[in-house]
């Protein structure tokens, strides 16, 4: 090992600004995608649970297709293919705004929502059937029973797995660098090519990602110990 470490270069001045900027973009893209994927994932599961054959068929193929293809390919598909898929005026509007960021959010959301839909379904399946039947018998409609009785209980059970999905999403957001979203990994790569100080930049980025994930897994553990053991049946 003949490499001289020089930590000051990434901890002060311009490069520090780059890293902070990258971290903010990472948090932003992950935050937006988390909310959207949770929404879409819940929607898809609910559609699948309606037991209408055609809806079931569509949602299953959505889940299976997007779960079993690499995120990178999905990113490239939307990034390069949107010109040929969407009408001209939508594309013009997207190009005028933050196109890369939008593509990143769309791909991350679609990819993660397929996983989340499966997790939520597993949660719903673990709720005894009688819950649904009883609430239907008291006069609630399917949607009401789902929203007020089944989903709240299911969410409590799947929260730890959901959080680890969000963690995966945050890590996966690093792939958005390939289409030019200036998030944390993109910035470290940039610092590497500007200054040849790759290891310092990579160390800082790695530590940031790890501290993010350790905080979250700590929260999951506390939740599991305090809460989950009591409600498992």
């Amino acid at each position: 090992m003949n490499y001289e470490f020089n930590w000051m270069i990434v901890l002060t001045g311009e490069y520090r600004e780059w890293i902070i900027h990258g971290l903010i973009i990472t948090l932003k893209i992950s935050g937006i995608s988390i909310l959207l994927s949770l929404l879409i994932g819940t929607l898809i599961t609910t559609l699948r649970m309606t037991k209408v054959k055609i809806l079931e068929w569509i949602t299953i193929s959505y889940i299976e297709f997007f779960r079993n293809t690499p995120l990178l390919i999905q990113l490239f598909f939307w990034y390069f293919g949107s010109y040929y898929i969407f009408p001209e005026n939508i594309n013009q509007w997207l190009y005028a705004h933050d196109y890369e960021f939008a593509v990143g959010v769309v791909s991350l959301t679609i990819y993660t929502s397929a996983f989340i839909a499966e997790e939520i379904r597993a949660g719903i399946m673990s709720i005894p059937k009688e819950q649904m039947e009883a609430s239907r018998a008291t006069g609630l409609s399917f949607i009401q029973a789902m929203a007020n009785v089944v989903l709240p209980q299911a969410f409590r059970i799947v929260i730890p797995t959901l959080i680890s999905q969000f963690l995966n999403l945050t890590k996966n957001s690093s792939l958005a660098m390939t289409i030019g979203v200036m998030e944390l990994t993109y910035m470290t790569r940039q610092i590497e090519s500007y200054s040849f100080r790759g290891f310092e930049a990579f160390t800082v980025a790695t530590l940031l990602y790890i501290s993010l994930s350790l905080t979250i897994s700590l929260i999951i553990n506390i939740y599991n110990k305090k809460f989950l053991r009591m409600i498992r049946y």
Partner: protein
Amino acid sequence: MHWDVVWNNFGYFLLGRFPDGPVGGLALSILLAVGGIFFAFWVGIIFGLMRLSKRWYIRIPSIIYIEIIRGTPLLLLIFWFYFLAPIIFHRPVPEARSTLVAFTVFTGAYCAEIVRAGIQSIPKGQMEAARSSGLNYTQAMIYIILPQALRNMIPSFVNQFVSLTKDTSLAYIIGVQELTRAATQVNNRTLNAPAEIFFTIAVIYFIICFGLTQTSRYLEKKLSYKTAGRMRQQEIELIEEDIGVP
């Protein structure tokens, strides 16, 4: 639509320049995935067993390894080994080899958690009975616990293999000539059929990964009927849920 672009380059997607040059395309992706899961399996067994050790100086290093790797994006890990390898070995290392190391180290951490969950799901009585029949700890582990645990772990390993197959697409970033790289090369050369090209690539990945997922589901069902305690697979899943294996 320009499906002829896809059709003309289909051989390149599958094999790269194979007969005339190095292996590439889908073949290289599969080679990377198979090599990665093979080495990661052994890494996983070693670190999974270390994780369960009663001695802190064996357990702590394993916990540190697992937590660090699980908190880091694979992309950063690939960059780490890509830039680190020439400094350690004092000569350029082929990209495919440094990504293989990155895949092994990354998947190894997840495999270690699978191994831990699998061993913990075997009833304690098995170990106690083995020890009281005169086997020492290592013998009991090798002949009694691991054979049972490994069989329960097979579906989880297949799932891990699926996600590794998808992750091999990341090798594209440092210039390994695998399927994703082949696709972007053809896309850059032709420029008129990106949607068709990437859809085709997505379907190729889908066929492989979906086939494996279905296999894992089938195995899960079959194995859970075969094992004496039908609860075990469910227990593994519960533990995996807690630790967040994808």
